[in-house]
């Protein structure tokens, strides 16, 4: 039964997408567009229920090789490619996050009027791709799902996005593809250098470390690590590769920004943890320092850029870059000499992946709510704004008096974003820093500056938009409605509960994460 759930999780969205197209072609052309979004809502709802069911029956203490939560069917025998999916403590939170955010995003895009059939069917395909990435335990399958997401994403940004959507879409596509082709080469190299030749990620944990060959004067494992790292780093995005992110996030429609920041960014770090870490522990050890430095650069660079932004969505996009830096720092601390430090770091990293997914989703949704009514999201109008009277003036002001409930939610989300204690972000960030401190003292101390910088931009934006004298232009704004509360409240509850009582999340991930730590600590 459990194994059926895994397959259903991936393929229910595909069926949903097909039935949206089918429903549209069998109905008369002038019928309402409601059925597309309804089918999408039902599909993602079923997916969410299935993933919760999976979570209920999930036993986190069983390691993946003995886990009952796997399906293994031969697919292409000549290359030993299998349809091999499964969950462990590492993928379980990501599966929950994907299912939850997909469901909420359908709610979030309820009012899409432009070609809803295309929008919702592409969204469901994207959903299937994301689910597939987190469930695959066969590298070939993983790669396919990884690439399957690109095409729907291209259209979702390119057709339904903002003014620069066409450029943003192709930039996103080319950046990600550039990374993933290196991943493809690394994958083929792993296959041919391992003995026996296989794409099975569980078998490769044993066999990949014995690869011993030299190409271009480098150890092959070293090159494989770099290939994989380029692929994953672009997705995270790690500092020099991050330039696609602000553009794509800003231009994408709200729901797609949520998915991009909430799920897609996590794929990069998930890939590192699922593939690079257990397969190439020796290279992890030698790269950890670089990883930590890149993490701290991400933290600071993202935060400094966020401070400079006057567009709320762009600010949140850069805050994502900053927050993914914490994940990298936590991941780098796996080489710490103290095991408890390594555990704190890596567990913190995985928790941060989940928590950032929920918090940033909340932030993007809230900005989307405001944007739907005000049709802009400037904190300050830019100096070269096309309307000369508005240029350089504050975009909003005193919205709090007009939309009190909405403002309360925003305050909550902003505080979660800047890592206020008792909210989930604080715990995972603190754990990342604890881990980082035990491994790389100086670097981490520099990184803690990021906490301060985070507070600067969140609080300043809050003050400029929601506090102060009320801007009379916005007297027509109405407060957040029932549907919008419905999509934000679950995320807020999760943030609060995990901030006070993080044990469910920790106990879900810790066995798998500690398994990875063991593998790496062995080679130190």
């Amino acid at each position, binding site marked *: 039964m459990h194994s059926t759930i895994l397959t259903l999780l991936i393929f229910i969205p595909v069926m949903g997408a097909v039935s949206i197209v089918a429903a549209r072609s069998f109905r008369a052309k002038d019928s309402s567009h409601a059925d597309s979004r309804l089918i999408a809502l039902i599909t993602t709802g079923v997916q969410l229920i299935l993933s919760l069911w999976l979570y209920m029956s999930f036993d986190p203490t069983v390691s993946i090789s003995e886990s009952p939560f796997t399906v293994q069917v031969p697919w292409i025998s000549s290359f030993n490619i299998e349809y091999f999916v499964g969950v462990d403590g590492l993928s379980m939170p990501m599966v929950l996050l994907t299912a939850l955010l997909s469901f909420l995003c359908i709610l979030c895009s309820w009012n899409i009027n432009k070609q809803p059939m295309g929008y919702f069917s592409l969204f469901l395909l994207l959903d299937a791709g994301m689910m597939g990435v987190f469930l695959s335990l066969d590298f070939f399958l993983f790669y*396919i799902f990884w*690439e399957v997401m690109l095409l729907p994403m291209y259209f979702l940004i390119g057709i339904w996005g903002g003014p620069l959507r066409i450029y943003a879409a192709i930039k996103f596509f080319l950046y990600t593809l550039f990374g993933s082709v290196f991943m493809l*080469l690394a994958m*083929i190299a792993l296959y041919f250098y391992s003995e026996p030749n296989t794409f099975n990620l569980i078998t490769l944990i044993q066999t990949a470390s014995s690869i011993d060959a030299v190409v271009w004067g480098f150890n092959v494992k070293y090159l494989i690590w770099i290939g994989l790292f380029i692929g994953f780093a672009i997705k995270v995005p790690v500092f020099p590769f991050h330039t696609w992110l602000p553009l794509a996030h800003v231009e994408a429609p709200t729901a797609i920004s949520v998915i991009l920041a909430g799920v897609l960014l996590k794929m990069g770090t998930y890939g590192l943890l699922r593939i690079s870490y257990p397969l190439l522990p020796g290279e992890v050890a030698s790269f950890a320092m670089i990883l930590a430095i890149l993490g701290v650069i991400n933290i600071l660079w993202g935060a400094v850029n966020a401070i400079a932004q006057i567009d709320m969505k762009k600010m949140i996009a850069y805050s994502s870059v900053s927050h993914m830096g914490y994940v990298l720092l936590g991941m780098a601390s796996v080489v710490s000499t103290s095991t408890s430090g390594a555990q704190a770091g890596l567990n913190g990293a995985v928790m941060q992946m989940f928590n950032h997914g929920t918090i940033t989703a909340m932030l993007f949704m809230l900005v989307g709510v405001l944007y739907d009514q005000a049709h802009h999201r400037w904190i300050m109008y830019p100096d070269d704004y096309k309307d000369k009277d508005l240029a350089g003036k504050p975009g909003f002001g005193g919205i709090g008096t007009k939309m009190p409930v909405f403002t309360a939610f925003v305050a909550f989300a902003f505080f979660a974003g800047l890592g206020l204690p008792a909210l989930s972000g604080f715990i995972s960030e603190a754990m990342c820093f604890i881990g980082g401190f035990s491994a790389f003292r100086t670097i981490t101390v520099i990184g803690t500056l990021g906490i301060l910088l985070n507070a600067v931009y969140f609080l300043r934006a809050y003050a400029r938009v929601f506090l102060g004298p009320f801007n009379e232009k916005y007297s027509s704004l109405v407060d957040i409605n029932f549907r919008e509360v419905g999509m934000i409240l679950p995320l807020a509850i999760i943030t609060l509960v995990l901030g006070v009582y993080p044990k469910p999340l920790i106990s879900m991930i810790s066995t798998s994460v500690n398994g990875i730590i063991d593998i790496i600590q062995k080679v130190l």
Partner: protein
Amino acid sequence: MILSNLNSLIWYLPELTLLLTSIAVLIFDLFGRLRPYNAYLPYVGLIRSGIFLFIMGPSYEILFEGMIVNDSFSYFFKCIFLVSAFMIILLSSNTEKIKNVNNSEYNMMLIIITIGLFLMCSANNLVIVYIGVELVSLPSYILSGILKNDEKSNEASLKYVIFGSFASGLMLFGISWLYGLAGSTDFSIIHRELLVNSNPMMIYLTILLIMAGFGYKISMAPFHYWTPDVYEGSPTPVTAFFSVAPKAAGIALILRFIYSIFTVKGSFGNTEFIQSISWPQIMAIISAVTMTMGNLLAIQQSNVKRMLAYSSIAHVGYMLMAFTVLSSDAILAVLLYVFIYFFMNLAAFFFIVDVSNNTGTSKLSDYKGYASIAPISSAFMVITLVSLAGLPPMSGFIGKFYLFSVLFRESSFYWLAVIGILNSVVSLYYYFLIVKNMYLEKPSEKLKPLKPNKAILYSLIIFSSQNLLFYLYWTPLVEYFKRIVS
């Protein structure tokens, strides 16, 4: 088994049928009463030839005292040629631009080219090689110039003639050298003689000269300059045909030529080159140059036909990657890629014909907003383009995956793999220029409501849905190619 001339005829029925068809098409054209049937005659001939081919099956026979080989290798290519000729004739009858040209002349040329292609893929003698190449080339010159009042078409024809005759001259020179070295034109005798010959310099030169002739047929760099102009000027169905069938034949010819003459055992699956000639290095460089040039030049094109011309050059570059390795896996990868390329390129050209029927041109800017008037065919075009770019989940990815894995399994050309993989990123950019114009741009005012053409639509759907079908389960396909290679 080597058959005598008379006994060979029965195994030569597919070609003979085509020959009779081409003559019949001309005769039918002379009589007014028979002329209406002329539209169907080529189909009948091609199907009849296909039936003969099917009945004979992929047997192994050497015909006409060793001039021609019938084996599963040539069988596979013959099937591809027949299907593509069939589809091209179907496509031509649905193309607005060439409705006024003389039908029988056009069809006869196509069928004669098909015979030439048959010869190319089954040649076992240098003379047959030359006859095959010329039998393909001469009607091609005429076909590319068949729009007599179109300047571009005339230019295409002229350029094709000049380049083609120059290249075949070089090839003939190479053939004569080979004859001088070995004293025979038969592949197996040449192979035996070359084994004991001790002048690798001569062999190098011969290979280079002959590869000039073959390379021009498959538009391999640096013999690719004719391709964009000819592809742009020729009527679109003819371009579609050029981009698939002669390329496949050229690939087949190179494979057979190289493996049966220049390897130690003289058969497929051999992994050693005679006289330790560094063929892999040459091929690796040619391959890298071909695909990089094709892809980089394609970016700047504003005409979709021209863009696909450069893209076809790039695809040849990908296929040449496998030529750096001498092994049965390499042949398998090439055959698989030829097969997939055949489907996806034809599908892309179906769509181009569809657009030019409606807008009159194949300029990139005329594709703006095309998806809004033709949603179904546009969606399938996207599938095709994604497949051409080699992204999963499309069969183009499988083709590339096999090519790259050959490089990793057998050789040390990792730099070639890196160049190849970067090229596929570049190619995505220009393929998605088409997608961008179709989906993301506003429709131009010129765009009128669509005149739907069922034949094109259905062929497009059939040919592009293979991209998903083969992808989902390609084991039988690979098993089939394995049997061909062994």
